[in-house]
């Protein structure tokens, strides 16, 4: 008897859910929403979170106010471990992310507090990528290297002659950007002479000062220097040519090196969200990226248009993580 009541209640509940879904009001935030920027104020994640907060609020795309909190540390490791420990199933929470998180996960820096196991993208709820930036390989304007081929030839002859400046640690973004290109060209990526700096600005200064031969920045960091003709882009790591000041910069693919480096910016949610809750956020962010104010904000930040959500995004993330882990193993940075 008990059991039959339980089943029929469940049936009724399911019916309600289906009806509600059909009515288009599946789930909506019913209390204030929290966005977490897993970096300090002013960083890239902070700008993603605060930009989305601004556009979603101003365009009235969410029925509740949004607060942005900074939970900095360990390239996202601190925020993700907090979420795993305390916020499972909390649908009023989104966290900004980018490929930096891929490296945090690949290097095993984020662990499940309960089991001590390394986390993957399957342990959280990826929502969507809302914009993107691309990697680039650049040299100084007076460099003898005119194209990517020249630089790779020099690398083939003597890898130690091609010092590469980057604004992140060994085994993280800027290092991997260059290693990825080298690998795609069929050369030995373990020989890359990578010089890590504290931030892209210092890396660029070392390139301009002639202390390093090449650099692997993000496109958004170098618009000013490209425009002024101080640096030459040997390759943009996007699939197609970009517009604006970058319209003359060739892609790596055009030069026969089949690779890219997509610096997507997006959001993830806590694990344990219902499908309706996750879908709500995917749809809401999908509406957000179509608004003119988001487009302007993204362009002003030097970002390009990209929207991918759902299973497509999750699949992309899984591949990205596998690729990063494999490459880091090859580079001897991961056992």
């Amino acid at each position, binding site marked *: 008897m008990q059991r039959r009541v339980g089943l029929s209640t469940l049936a009724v509940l399911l019916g309600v859910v289906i009806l509600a879904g059909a009515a288009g009001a599946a789930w909506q935030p019913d209390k204030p929403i929290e966005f977490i920027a897993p970096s*300090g*104020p*002013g960083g890239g994640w*902070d*700008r993603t979170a*605060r930009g989305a907060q*601004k556009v979603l609020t101003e365009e009235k795309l969410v029925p509740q106010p949004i607060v942005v*909190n*900074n*939970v*900095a*540390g*360990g*390239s996202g*490791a*601190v925020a993700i*471990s907090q979420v795993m420990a305390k916020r499972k199933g909390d649908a009023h929470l989104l966290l900004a992310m980018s490929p930096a998180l891929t490296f945090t996960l690949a*290097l095993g*820096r*984020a*662990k499940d507090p309960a089991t001590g196991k390394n986390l993957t993208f399957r342990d959280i709820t990826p929502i969507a990528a809302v914009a993107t930036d691309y990697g680039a390989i650049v040299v100084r304007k007076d460099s003898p290297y005119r194209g990517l081929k020249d630089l790779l030839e020099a690398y083939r002859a003597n890898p*130690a002659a091609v*010092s590469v400046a980057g604004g992140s*640690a*060994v*085994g*993280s973004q800027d*290092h991997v950007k260059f290693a990825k290109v080298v690998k795609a060209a069929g050369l030995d990526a373990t020989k890359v*002479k*990578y*010089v*890590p*700096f*504290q*931030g892209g*600005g*210092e890396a*660029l*200064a*070392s390139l*301009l*000062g*002639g*202390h*390093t031969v090449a650099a692997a920045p993000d496109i*958004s960091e170098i*618009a*000013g*220097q490209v*425009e*002024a003709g*101080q640096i030459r882009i040997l390759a943009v790591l996007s699939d197609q040519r970009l517009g604006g000041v970058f319209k003359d910069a060739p892609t790596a693919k055009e030069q026969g090196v089949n690779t890219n480096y997509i610096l997507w910016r997006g959001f993830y949610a806590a694990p344990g969200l219902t499908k309706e809750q996750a879908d709500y956020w995917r749809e809401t962010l999908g509406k957000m990226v179509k608004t003119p104010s988001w487009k302007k*904000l993204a362009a*002003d*930040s*030097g970002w390009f248009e990209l929207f991918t959500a759902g299973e497509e995004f999750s699949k992309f993330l899984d591949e990205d993580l596998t690729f990063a882990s494999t490459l880091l193993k090859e580079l001897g*940075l991961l056992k």
Partner: protein
Amino acid sequence: MAEVFSSLAYGFSVALTPANLIWAMVGSVIGTLIGVLPGIGPVSGIAILIPVIYGMNPASAMIMLTAMYYGTMYGGSTTSILVNVPGEASSVVTTLDGYQMARQGRAGAALAIAAIGSFVSGTLSILGLMLFAVPLTTLALKFGPAEYFGLMLLGLSSVTSLAGKSLVKALLSMIFGLMIATIGVDLSTGIARYTFEVPQLLDGIGFLVVAIGLFAVSEVLLAIEELGQARREPIPLGRVWLSWREFAASWWAMIRGTVIGFYIGVLPAAGATIASFISYDVEKRLAKDPSTFGKGDIRGVAAPESANNAAAVGNMVPLMTLGIPGSSTTAIMLGALMMLGVQPGPLMYQKNPDVFWGLIASMYIGNTMLLILNLPLVGLWVKILAIPERILYPLILAVSVIGVYGVSSSTTDLLLACGFGLLGYYMRKHDYPLAPAVLGVVLGGLMEQSLRQALVLSDGSYWILLQRPISLVLVVLSVVSLVSPYLIVAFRKFQGEPQF
């Protein structure tokens, strides 16, 4: 040259509109407040304002942000002088003589010289920025990893000037700071060091946490102990104003502080903190009687406070000429400029002359405003010392804790600050100076990185440090500076002169 001045006149026409004057005022007031509050610094201040400025006219927004940045440099010295708690990293060295002056009833003079020094160095540095930005940038780019290593070494060698009774204790304190600086993900290998699987330690321990612990928490602990025993004498409020003699004594310290600070500020990877330490060191070495330093010598306040302001202006040079941020503060400003639709970089002065020249003109205006704002505040700040310590210190502690937690939302940082507080208490009880530990924390990371970058470039050969002329000079200077106290003593012994 004439062109520069006509452009500047144009800049003033942008900056002197009533609306922009109000924005400069707002920035100055907020900046001073942020500077005064220990815990929050210019980086978080600007980040908090970024959502506010979005959609503003770019010139007005930047005028407000830079006024705020300089305001924090003015305000940073206040708590260093009054209560021995540095408001910013660049004001740590100000505690040495500033706090002693306050204990002698000369807090007013110390605060006044800090404000005047900031004004003089700010104004001169803006002139430097306007006239020599491009040649200075070229010179700054000559600084590669080897040169930065030399500069950091020189900065560390200033430890000899920070030593109180014992140089050995100062060195131990510095080494402790250097050890703290190794915590976190190592840039050169990507490996996490001394983090014990605690994710909060992956980025290392911030200066703020160390400084709040060592200075503020330990100060409270000492005050508690001494209150019980009624050993602590109340600080005499004394004569508030600066005497002409004190001003004259500080003049050259301010000028030297400006030159040192501005040049170090222009270097993309160095900054206000190292500038303040080096300028203090230089003043102490040049002084006829160095023993007055650390006991309330006004030059010990004038030099670092001028240097840190000059460095803040110098930081703007690579941002404005190259579009490269030289510090975390200018990195945020670069982000703000982009949000406002201005692409910082070599073409900024052509494409956005209103922003470029308006900014330079507004720096003059902001500096004057800050001086006018800060001098009357001196009287007000000094009154803080009249608050009974049993109320004042808990208040400072509360503000500091809010500052630490507000920026990182991390309870780990609070626990660490408590730990450093206990350590600071022990260090003070046993005459270990605190400033060298901060010096180690601030310079250690950059010094290690530069060394290892240099070694990557040279394929492992240490000769790179001596083969490049600038780094050779800097390394030699550091060695001389470290051993000179011993050499002088030995020399005097040899001459049979009386020893001090």
